[in-house]
C-alpha cells in the first residue's frame, strides 16, 4: 500500500463523520423548520389558488395586515431611540444602578409575554390603577392601538440595545472625545462620529426588532380584545380563523406572516453578504 492510499483509507471514516453530522443538521432543520413552513403553504393552497386568494382578499385580513405594519412602524422607531439611548448610557456613563439597567433591558426576554400583557391590563384596564382616570378623560389604551403598541414595545425592547451595547463598549469613547475637542456639538458628535461607527449593528438590531413585533402573539393577545378589523393583528387573525375551523383561511394568513419573515430574513442575509466585512470588523472583539 502506498502512502497516498493509506492516507485515503484513514480519511474515509473522517469523511463519513462529516457526512453524518451534515445530514443530521440538515435533517433536523428540515423536520422542524422547513417541513412546518412548507406545510403552512400546502395547507393554505389545499383548496386551490382561488380559495387562497379569497381567504386573503377580505377586509379583515387587510385590516390585520395594516394594523400589524402600523404597530411595527410605531414600535420599531421607539425601540430604535430607546435602544441607542440605553446602550449609550450603559457604555459611556458611570451611574448608580448601571448593572440594574443592563439586567432590566434583558427582562422582556425572560418574562412571559402573556405576563407582560396582563401587567398592562392591571395598569390600564377598567379596574386597573390608571383605568378610572383614563376612562374619565376618554383615553383608550386597552383593546386599542396604544395597548398593542405598548405590549409590542415591551416584548421587543432588548433587541436594539443588546445589539449595540457590546459594540459601543468595545469601541470606547475616544473618537467622541476627539470630536468634542475639535469643536463638535453633541448632535454633530452623534451624527458624524457615533452613528457611522454603529450603523451596521444598528441596522441589524432594527431588522431583528422588526421581525419580532409582526409575529408577537402572547402579550398582544391579552391587550387586544380581539375586535375583528380593529384590534386583531396577523397572529391574532390566524388564531381566530383557526378556532373557527377556517383552516384554509388561517394558513393563508399564516403564509403571509411567513412571507414577511422571509423578507426580513432575506434583507438580513443581503446585509450580511454585502457588508459582511464591515459587520465583522465592527463586531465586539474584532477590530
Amino acid at each position, binding site marked *: 500500500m502506498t502512502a497516498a492510499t493509506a492516507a485515503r483509507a484513514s480519511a474515509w471514516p473522517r469523511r463519513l463523520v462529516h457526512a453524518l453530522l451534515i445530514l443530521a443538521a440538515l435533517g433536523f432543520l428540515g423536520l422542524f423548520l422547513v417541513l412546518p413552513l412548507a406545510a403552512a403553504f400546502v395547507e393554505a393552497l389545499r383548496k386551490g389558488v382561488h380559495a387562497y386568494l379569497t381567504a386573503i382578499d377580505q377586509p379583515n385580513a387587510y385590516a390585520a395586515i395594516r394594523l400589524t405594519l402600523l404597530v411595527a412602524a410605531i414600535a420599531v422607531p421607539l425601540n430604535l431611540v430607546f435602544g441607542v439611548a440605553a446602550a449609550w448610557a450603559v457604555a459611556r456613563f458611570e451611574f448608580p444602578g448601571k448593572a440594574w439597567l443592563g439586567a432590566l433591558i434583558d427582562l422582556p426576554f425572560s418574562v412571559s409575554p402573556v405576563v407582560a400583557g396582563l401587567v398592562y391590563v392591571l395598569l390600564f384596564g377598567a379596574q386597573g390603577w390608571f383605568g378610572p382616570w383614563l376612562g374619565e378623560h376618554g383615553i383608550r389604551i386597552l383593546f386599542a392601538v396604544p395597548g398593542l403598541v405598548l405590549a409590542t414595545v415591551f416584548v421587543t425592547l432588548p433587541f436594539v440595545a443588546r445589539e449595540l451595547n457590546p459594540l459601543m463598549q468595545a469601541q470606547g469613547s475616544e*473618537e467622541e472625545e476627539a*470630536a468634542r475637542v*475639535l*469643536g*463638535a456639538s453633541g448632535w454633530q458628535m452623534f451624527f*458624524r462620529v457615533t452613528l457611522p*461607527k454603529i450603523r451596521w449593528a444598528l441596522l441589524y438590531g432594527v431588522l431583528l426588532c422588526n421581525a419580532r413585533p409582526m409575529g408577537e402573539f402572547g402579550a398582544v393577545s391579552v391587550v387586544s380584545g380581539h375586535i375583528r378589523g380593529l384590534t386583531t393583528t396577523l397572529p391574532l387573525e390566524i388564531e381566530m380563523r383557526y378556532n373557527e375551523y377556517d383552516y384554509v383561511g388561517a394558513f393563508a394568513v399564516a403564509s403571509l406572516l411567513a412571507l414577511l419573515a422571509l423578507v426580513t430574513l432575506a434583507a438580513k442575509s443581503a446585509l450580511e453578504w454585502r457588508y459582511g466585512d464591515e459587520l465583522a470588523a465592527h463586531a465586539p472583539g474584532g477590530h
Partner: protein
Amino acid sequence: MTLELSRLSRRFAGYTALDDVSLDIAPGEFLALLGPSGSGKTTLLRILAGLDHPDAGTARLDGRDFLATPARTRKVGLVFQHYALFRHLTVAENVAFGLRVRPWRTRPGRAEIAARVENLLQRVQLEGLGQRYPAQISGGQRQRVALARALAVEPDLLLLDEPFGALDAQVRVTLRRWLRELHEDLGLTTVFVTHDQEEALELADRVAVMDRGRIEQVGTPEAIYQDPATPFVCEFIGKVNRIPLVRTGGALAAAGWALDDDPWDGGQAQATAYVRPEHLALDVAATRPGWKAHLRHVYLAGSVAHLELDVSALGQTLEADVASEDLARLGLHAGGSLHVSPRRAVVFPAGSGGERRVWQAGEVAAVA
C-alpha cells in the same frame, strides 16, 4: 498669556489622581509632563483639554477662567495616545473635521477647507494620502494625521498624550526631532505627556516631574537632571547610585568615605547620597577617599562604557559610566579591581528639618 494652574485636585473612586497641583505654562513653551503611570499626568492633560474637570482648583488664562470654557470652544488641540482617528472618514476628512463642524457663520467655504487641509497634509508630510482611510496607513502616518487634525482648528494650546508611545524606536526618534521643529515653526504652546524621561529631557523646554498626583519638580531638563529636588526625581530621571550615609565620628559617612563638610551642622543622624554613574571617579590606586571595588562587568555602548562595580565595603553594586577610551587608558577589564570615589552627589537628609545639598568633591555647595 500665561496659563496659570492653581491648586488643582481630582479624585476618582478610591484614589487621588491630582493632589493640589499648581503650574504656570508660559506662552510658546514646550512643556513635558513626566511621570510613571498613575502619576496623574494624563488626568492633568484631560483637564486642560476640557474632557475632565477638577474637584478643586482654578486655571486662569489672561485672568479669564479657563475651566469654565467648554471643550468645544476652548481652542485646544489634542492628540490622543492611540490617535482616535475617525475610522469611517478619509485622512482629508479627518483633518477637515474641526473646520466642518463649525457654526456656519465662522465655517470656511468648501474650497478654503480643501486648501487648508492640503496645506496641513503638506506640513505633516502626508501629501497625496488624503483619500486613504486610517486603516490603510502606518502608525507614524496616523500620528501625523492626528496632529494635522488637531492643528486644523488653529489651537492656542497643543496637547499631546504619549505622542510617541505607540511607535517603534526608529520612527520615534525621527518624529521627536520633527515635532520639536514644528513646535518652533508654529510658535504654539505645547504640553505633552510622557513616561519616557529621555523623550522629556530631549524635547522639552521645561519638564514637570509628577508622582502620585503631585508635581515633584518643575524645571529645565538640565536642572531636573543635575539638581533633582526630591529623592523620587533622583531615582526616576536617569540612572543613579543610592548610598546610605550614617553619622560616624562627627561626619556623615559610608564605609570609610565621608562628606568632608557637615551640611546640617550635626542636625541629621542619617542621610542618603545620590550619585550619578558619570560622577563616580575611577582610579587604579587609592589617591582620594573612596572604596575599593571589583569590576564585575563592562557593557560597552559605543562611546560610553557602563561598568558594574561590586563594592564589598558598602555591600552593594554601583554603576559607573566612563568614556570608552578611558577604559583602555586605565587598563580596566572585567575581574580587575580599582578604586572608586564620588565626585558629586545630591544628599537628602533622612529626617525632617534639613534641605537637600549638592555636594562636590572638596566642597559643600549650598543649594540656591
